[in-house]
């Protein structure tokens, strides 16, 4: 695990939040459902005394013997009223 890996919430907020922000009022097309299948590297890390689920996209494009074989996360988001 490296210091670059973030908790799952941060990674998801970046990825899905980006799609959420892309919504332009008045534009004819918008995303209503988001399905993601992501390779992720997973750890449990102690952050402020709390066991935190750290899961982020692989840092390097080419994996070495020192890197984990990524796990796989499939997640579906649907649009709801905020």
């Amino acid at each position, binding site marked *: 695990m490296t210091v670059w890996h973030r908790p*799952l*919430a941060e990674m*998801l907020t970046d990825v*899905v939040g980006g799609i959420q922000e892309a919504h332009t009022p008045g534009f004819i097309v918008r995303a209503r459902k988001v399905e993601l299948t992501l390779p992720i590297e997973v750890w449990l890390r102690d952050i402020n005394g709390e*066991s935190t689920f750290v899961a982020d996209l692989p840092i390097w494009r080419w994996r070495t013997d020192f890197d984990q074989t990524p*796990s796989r996360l499939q997640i579906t988001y*649907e649009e*709801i*009223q*905020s």
Partner: protein
Amino acid sequence: MSNGEKAVPIEQFIQALQTQLDRAQTAMAVKAENLDLPLTFAVKDLSLDLRTHVEIVKSEVRIRPAGPADSEASTLHLALTTITRPMIKENAKTMSLDPDEPSLKEAVGDQLTDEEQKRLEWAGVHSISQLRKLADSGAGKEVERVADLPVDRLRQALLRASRPFVASVEPDDGANEGATDPLVRLRGRNLMRNNLLPRVSLAGQPVNVMAANDREIVIAPNGDQLSGTLSIETEPGQITEMSIDLPAPKRRASTQSVVEEANDDTGGES
């Protein structure tokens, strides 16, 4: 997954995952509000193929990290979905446990090992009342099979858990104005069985029992019965004994010594 080569309980892992999903949801809701967006996204389904080793340590399922180049790791497939509020209510376990009821561990002490207690929890037995209910219903054999716990040991544990236990001894000054003998209240648990008044003696002499229920016995010792071994018998074989030293009547007794003595003697119960 890696956590310094340390295996973690699977519940801890799933809770940590759920916490992160909740945080992501909150972050997006806040973002929608700040950007004045009428709509946001919510998780509908999640599936995770996690490379890990699953092992059992002391009857606890733990996940051990699959390290780099660890080709023999298992894949744990987790599928989560969202549920509605009525579904939460429908599936929530009814908490019918008495908050004052001692835990299984407190009640059985060292009669059962940690692993045996864990196996009972696997079978859904978390309290002594649940254990007693099972035994009374004749389901001892089923428990033996499911929790791999011999019926005899289960019976011994129940016997131990059913022993009377006194947590405090207090003279009842106010309620006995004008009476010959001072009243003393003994508070604890398992102080009455089968609706029969317990037999109480102090320093080898019988003591009048004025009232009793499962949590309290009110006794009226003679004026000269102030110290010695207090013995409470709720049914044959279910006896607890402890030394007490009551102060002069109409003063509040210090129960500290009683509790300490009880704790010294087989972990709080004798």
